[in-house]
C-alpha cells in the first residue's frame, strides 16, 4: 500500500502537489541550480522552524553541499507515506533529483506554550513547572526528575487521522509487568479517527467505563507524574495535552495531594485526615440534613432543632425540594463561573452569593440552614485535590439526597452500601480500587490515612508495586546527630 519515491524529481513533485493540493500551509520549495531544478523541499509553515530550514537546509542545498545539511536528526524515507507523516509532524522532507529516497530533516519548531505553573494543581510548596501541550517537552520534564535508564518511554501512534503520538512511560524495574502488558494491549486496541485529549485515551482504556468513579489519575505536574512512576505506576503522555494519565489508581490516592509529601509529615497527615472527613461531608452532608430534618428530628439537639425550625417556619418547600434547588443552583453557579473570563466570573459569583444566598433567604424562599449546608458541601468538595474524584462525588450526592428524602437514614445506608460495594468491586488495571482498606493491608498504612515520615516509608504501595517494593534499603537511622550511634 506504499507509494515508493520515483527517481525523477518532477514526478515526485507532481505526486506531492496532487496529494497536498488546497493546503495553503504546505510549502514546496524548489532549489534551482544553473536554471535547473535539482531539489525541492516540503514542510509545513508554522510547524517547522523556518530559521532552521533556511540556515541548515536551504543554504547547503543552494551550495550543492548535500552532506552539509545539518540537523539533529536525519533519516531517509523510501515511500511517500513516511514522508507525509514526517512532514505533518513538523519535519522537512528534501527530495533530490535522481534519488529514490527522500531525506527527512528534523526541523521541528513552531510555537507552543512555554512551561508555566500548572493552573489546575497549584501548590504552596513544590515545583512550579507544569506540563504543556508539547509531548517532547513533557517527557523531558519527567526525564529531568528521573535520570535513570530504567525509565522507559514507549511510543504509540493513535488516531487514523490525527496520528497523535502517545507515550507509555514506566519504571522498568518497578512496574508490574502484567499491568504493563495490559496497558500496551489496551492502547493498541484503540481505533479512532482522532485523539485530541488524554481524556479520549482514558475512556478507552479504563476498566469500568460505567463507574462514576475515575480509574485514572491525571496530573499537570511533572513531580506528581515522577512520584507515581516511582510508585510503580505507568503514565500515558498524549501529544497536545498537558494532562498525563496515571494508573493503576486507588481511591485513597485520589485524596492525596503532592503537597502532602512536601510539607512536614505531621501537617501532611493532619490535612489528609481533614480531607477524608470533608470528602465524606461532600458526599453525605446534604443527604444527612434532609434525612434528619424530615424523618429523625429526635436526633438533633433540642436547641438546634428549635433554631432550624424557626428558620424553616415560613419556607414553602419541603426540605428535600429546598435542598435539591439549592444544590442544583450551586452546581450551575459553579459551572457558569468556570468557563467565563476571570472578570465576568467574579460578577457571576457576586450574583450567586447575593441573589441565591442572601436574597432567597431574606425572601423566605429557602432557609438559612440549607444555605449553610450547601456552602459547606461546596467547600468540602473543593478540598478534594483531584478534580475527577470531586466531580464524581458531587454527582453522587444527588442520588444520595433523593434516597435520604424518600427513606431517611435507611436510604442513606442503602446508598452507602451500594457505593461501598461498588468501590470494593472496582479495579484499576487489576488493582483493587480500595487497596489498603479493602483488602486491608497493614503494610500500606504508612501512606494511607496519614503520611508517615519519609524515614518510615521503607516500602512502596504493596498493591501496586508488586515486584520491587523496597524504597529504601537502610532502615530508619534516627535523626542526624542523635545519640545512640556508634561514636
Amino acid at each position, binding site marked *: 500500500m506504499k507509494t515508493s519515491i520515483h527517481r525523477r524529481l518532477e514526478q515526485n513533485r507532481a505526486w506531492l502537489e496532487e496529494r497536498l493540493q488546497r493546503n495553503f500551509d504546505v510549502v514546496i520549495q524548489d532549489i534551482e541550480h544553473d536554471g535547473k531544478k535539482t531539489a525541492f523541499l516540503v514542510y509545513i509553515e508554522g510547524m517547522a522552524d523556518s530559521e532552521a530550514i533556511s540556515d541548515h537546509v536551504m543554504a547547503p542545498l543552494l551550495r550543492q553541499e548535500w552532506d552539509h545539511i545539518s540537523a539533529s536528526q536525519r533519516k531517509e524515507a523510501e515511500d511517500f507515506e513516511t514522508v507525509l507523516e514526517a512532514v505533518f509532524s513538523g519535519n522537512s522532507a528534501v527530495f533530490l533529483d535522481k534519488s529514490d529516497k527522500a531525506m527527512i530533516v528534523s526541523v521541528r519548531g513552531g510555537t507552543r506554550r512555554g512551561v508555566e505553573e500548572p493552573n489546575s494543581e497549584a501548590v504552596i510548596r513544590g515545583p512550579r513547572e507544569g506540563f504543556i501541550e508539547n509531548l517532547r517537552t513533557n517527557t523531558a520534564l519527567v526525564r529531568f526528575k528521573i535520570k535513570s535508564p530504567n525509565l522507559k518511554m514507549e511510543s504509540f501512534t493513535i488516531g487514523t487521522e490525527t496520528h497523535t503520538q502517545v507515550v507509555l512511560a514506566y519504571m522498568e524495574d518497578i512496574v508490574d509487568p502484567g499491568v504493563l502488558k495490559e496497558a500496551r494491549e489496551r492502547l493498541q486496541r484503540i481505533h479512532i479517527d482522532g485523539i485530541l485529549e488524554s481524556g479520549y485515551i482514558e475512556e478507552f482504556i479504563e476498566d469500568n467505563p*460505567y463507574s462514576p468513579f475515575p480509574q485514572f489519575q491525571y496530573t499537570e505536574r511533572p513531580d506528581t507524574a515522577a512520584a507515581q512512576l516511582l510508585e510503580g505506576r505507568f503514565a500515558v503522555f498524549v501529544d497536545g495535552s498537558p494532562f498525563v494519565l496515571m494508573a493503576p489508581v486507588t481511591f485513597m490516592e485520589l485524596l492525596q495531594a503532592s503537597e502532602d509529601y512536601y510539607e512536614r509529615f505531621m501537617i501532611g497527615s493532619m490535612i489528609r485526615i481533614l480531607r477524608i472527613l470533608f470528602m465524606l461531608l461532600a458526599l453525605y452532608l446534604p443527604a444527612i440534613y434532609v434525612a434528619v*430534618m*424530615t*424523618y429523625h*428530628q*429526635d436526633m438533633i439537639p*433540642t436547641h438546634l*432543632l*428549635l*433554631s*432550624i*425550625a*424557626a*428558620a*424553616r*417556619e*415560613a*419556607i414553602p418547600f*419541603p*426540605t428535600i425540594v429546598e435542598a435539591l434547588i439549592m444544590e442544583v443552583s450551586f452546581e450551575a453557579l459553579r459551572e457558569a463561573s468556570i468557563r467565563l473570563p476571570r472578570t465576568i466570573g467574579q460578577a457571576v459569583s457576586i450574583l450567586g452569593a447575593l441573589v441565591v444566598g442572601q436574597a432567597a433567604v431574606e425572601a*423566605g424562599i429557602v432557609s*438559612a440552614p440549607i444555605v449553610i449546608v450547601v456552602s459547606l458541601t461546596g467547600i468540602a468538595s473543593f478540598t478534594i485535590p483531584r478534580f475527577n474524584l470531586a466531580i464524581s462525588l458531587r454527582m453522587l450526592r444527588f442520588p444520595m439526597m433523593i*434516597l435520604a*428524602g*424518600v*427513606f*431517611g437514614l*435507611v*436510604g442513606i445506608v*442503602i446508598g452507602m452500601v*451500594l457505593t461501598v460495594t461498588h468501590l470494593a468491586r472496582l479495579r484499576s488495571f487489576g488493582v483493587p480500587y480500595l487497596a489498603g482498606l479493602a483488602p486491608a493491608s497493614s503494610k500500606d498504612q504508612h501512606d494511607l490515612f496519614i503520611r508517615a515520615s519519609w524515614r518510615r516509608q521503607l516500602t512502596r504501595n504493596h498493591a501496586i508495586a508488586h515486584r520491587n517494593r523496597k524504597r529504601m534499603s537502610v532502615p530508619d537511622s534516627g535523626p542526624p546527630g542523635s545519640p545512640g550511634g556508634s561514636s
Partner: protein
Amino acid sequence: MIRSARFTARLMLLPVMAMLVTGCWNRTEVNDLAIVQLTSFDWEDDQYRVGVSFPLVSQMSGTQGGGGGTGGKEGQNNYLESAKAPAIRDAINHVQRKLSRRLYFAHRRVLLIGETAAERGVKPILDTLSRYPENRISTYLLVAKDSALGLMQTPVLTERVTAEMFREILVNIMKEPVTARDFIHAILTEGVDAYTLVFKRTKTDAPDEDKKKADTVEIDGLAVFRDDRLAGILEQPFLNGALLALGQLKRPVVTVDLPEGRGHITVQFLKMTSRVEPVVNGDDIRMILTISGIFEISSNETDINLIHYENHDKATKAIERQIQKEVSAAVGELQTRFKADVLGFGSSVKRNHPGVWKRIGDRWRDLYPKVPVEYRFNIRMEHAGTLKNPIHHKAGEY
C-alpha cells in the same frame, strides 16, 4: 453488558423492596411539628388533665420577622394547650385534635406531675409514657406543688422556653436529676422508694412594687413516694439534708457557726459521695451512712487561722456536726413521717445479705421506720484558701 444491565435492574429493585417492606412513610417537615417541651399531668374532677407546652418557633428566631429583640412580652413564646379525659391517652388525643401541628414528644425535657395526680399514683402516667419510643424516658420527672398546669404556665424570662428553666435548675443542683427511667427503676426495685424534686410557682424576690415582680419557679422540697404514690413532700428545711444523704447535691455548700471564732465558716465541697451500708446482727439491723468528700474553704468570717492543724481539725469536726444535724433530721423525717425508704436501706440489705432479706423482706415496711442509722464521715480539707491568712489578720500574726 447483559450482566451489568441485570445488576442495575437488581439495584433498582432494592429501593422498591424497601418501600414495600418498611412501614408507613412518615416524612414530616419540622414546620408541621409541635416540638413539645413540657407536659403536665393533673387530676381534677375524676379525670386526667394533660397539658402540653411547646415553643412557637416563628417567634423565637432573631432572623425571621421584625429583626432583633426577643419577643419581649413574657411567655409569649410558649403555646399551651390542655384537655381533660378519664384516660391519659384520650386527653393527649383531645389536645392533638385542637392543634394544627403534630405533637412531637421526642424533645420533651420535663414531665410535671400535679400533687393530686401523684397522690393517685404515677403508674398510669409512666405506662403511657413508656409505650412509645418517641416518648423518652430520659425526660426529667418533677412534682408540681398544687397544679402542674399552673406551674407549666409560669412565664419565665430567663430562658427561651419554660422547660429550660426547670432543666437548668435541676442540673445545677442535683448530680443526677431524677428521670422517668430512674423513677420506673425505683418503683420496680424492692427496698427503694422513688423521690423527685417539687417545684412551685412564685414571684421574684427583688423589687418592692408588686407589678415589677416577675413570675418564676423554685424548688419547694422533695417529693417522697411510697410505691407509685406520693407519700408527702419533705419541706424546704429538710431538703438540703435529704439531698446530702442521697449524695445528690452538686458541689454542696455547708456553713457552720464557730462560736469560739465569733463568726461563720462556709465550705464548698468539691466532691461528695454518700454510701449506705447495713450491719446485720441476727434480726437486728443497723444502717451506716458514710459521707465522704473533699472541701475547700469558700469563706472564713472568723478570726481562726485555718492553716493550723488543730484549727483545721476543729473546723472539720464542726462541719461534720453540721452535716449530721441536717442529714439526721431529714432521715428521721423520711423514716418516721413518710415511712418511705428513699435512701434504699432495704435494697442495700437485700444486696449485702440476701438471706436476711428473704426473712424480713415482707416486713420491711414495718421494720424500716425503726432502723437505727449511724453516721460516719470521711471528709477532709483540700486547701485552706488562697490567702495565707484571713485578710483581717495582721501580717505576721499566727
